[in-house]
């Protein structure tokens, strides 16, 4: 539900600016991850270098979102859905920054891999990337549209990504034993797989924040038994 206009126009402007910066971070993070993976698949060092350089802008935006969020809390003391919107924007920004860090890590590992002959096992990465990015895009979409149902649906999809990571890890460890000459390469692929698994975790966090923003419901860590029930 889109809220009616605030009596204070400056509040609406500040909140819109905060959200715009989060969405800008999201676009840059998506582009950075895409460049890193394309750099890996197409063995393009130039793209990897750009992906690494992209990170600085995202870091600056994270600082800007934090500054604007704190400024907004200080000046307007928002409550209810307004407070949740500010808090979730700040939390999303933190997750996006860490997600972008994974893009940088992938690009760095890709550059190392590109120095050696291509490994056929690199193809294990593509489906993981596709899955992680679908989760990421849906989490952002749910946040923008305040779509609780879509956000909730993102969370269980992380399990499939975890399984892909575990499968890829097992396969790459087997290959290490079979082909010790390429041990470093397999190790780099394990790290990249792990980075994508982390991207899925951040997408899950963002989906949970989207549910909180829209429905004031904390769906994190639901497997944990509350202390009062023990």
């Amino acid at each position: 539900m889109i809220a009616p206009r605030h009596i204070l126009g400056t509040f609406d402007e500040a909140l819109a600016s905060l959200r715009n910066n989060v969405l800008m971070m999201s676009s840059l993070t998506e582009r950075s991850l895409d460049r890193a993976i394309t750099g890996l698949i197409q063995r393009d060092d130039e793209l990897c270098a750009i992906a690494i350089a992209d990170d600085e802008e995202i870091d600056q935006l994270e600082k800007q979102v934090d500054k604007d969020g704190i400024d907004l809390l200080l000046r307007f003391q928002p409550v209810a859905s307004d407070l949740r919107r500010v808090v979730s924007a700040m939390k999303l920004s933190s997750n996006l920054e860490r997600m972008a860090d994974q893009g940088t890590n992938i690009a760095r590992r890709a550059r190392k891999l590109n120095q050696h002959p291509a490994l056929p096992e690199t193809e294990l990465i593509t489906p993981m990337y596709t899955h992680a990015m679908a989760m990421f895009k849906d989490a952002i979409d749910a946040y923008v549209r305040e779509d609780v149902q879509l956000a909730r649906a993102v969370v269980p999809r992380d399990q499939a990504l975890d399984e892909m990571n575990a499968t890829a890890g097992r396969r790459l460890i087997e290959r290490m034993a079979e082909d010790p000459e390429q041990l470093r390469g397999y190790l780099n692929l394990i790290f990249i797989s792990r980075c994508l698994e982390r991207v899925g975790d951040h997408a899950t966090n963002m989906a949970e924040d989207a549910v909180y923003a829209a429905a004031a419901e904390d769906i994190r860590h639901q497997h944990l038994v509350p202390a009062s029930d023990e």
Partner: protein
Amino acid sequence: MVSVAEMSEITSPTVVNQTAPMPNPANPKVERGMIEIEQLDFAYGTNKVLHDINLSIPARAVTAFIGPSGCGKTTLLRCLNRMNDLIDSARITQGSIRIEGVDINASSVDVVDLRRRVGMVFQKSNPFPKSIYDNVAYGLRIAGTTKRTLIDEAVEKSLRSAALWDEVKDRLHVSGYGLSGGQQQRLCIARALAVEPEIVLMDEPCSALDPIATAKVEELIRQLKEQYTIVIVTHNMQQAGRCSDHTAFFYLGRLIEFDDTTKIFSNPGQRQTEEYITGRFG
């Protein structure tokens, strides 16, 4: 200046009518200081300003009434100690208000005793043109207490309860008008506490105070709720969030929502509440 009527409202004598005090019912389920409002309608002449209010105000907790100007929150507050009786055309047209199970509008209820049990603090501090000591002692004296040691004890206890004792103990006999605005308001709270009420009503008690004086009154409210049921009307949303346990939101004379304060300010159940507290009303 304080009017004579206001003086009597603020510190009504304790035992003016011994024959008709508000009885404490034997029902153990009724907690001391609990207020129950049922299907209450209230009108000024033909202008109905409260519609079908149903509200159970818990004892020994702070309940905030919030809502835009004219929503009826102060009118309802004034119903709780029958302050509206002083307005000719004002009357409850339907429903009841029960304090500890007793209908406060019943003919057997002594309104003077009611106002002793249900004290009130106003928007603007209104000390009497008397010394600090005499301000606090006023209610006790007109209730018939003459023993100096009893009054001394009650004055000190009340001033301590109002977190004012340390600031005034060396000048108890100077005029209450010499105090700062915040101190005057705490003096009024001490004056209300001196007659040992069970419920304290506060009508925007901090609206004329600076932030430090406001913080002191809010801290005082937090301490007082251990012994008293407190109902506070406030336009300051942050204040309601900070110092109340429960919040009731009123609009156009109707109770829109009543819930725990954390719920009201984090995820209210009604759209109108959400729009009001987030500043999107109207």
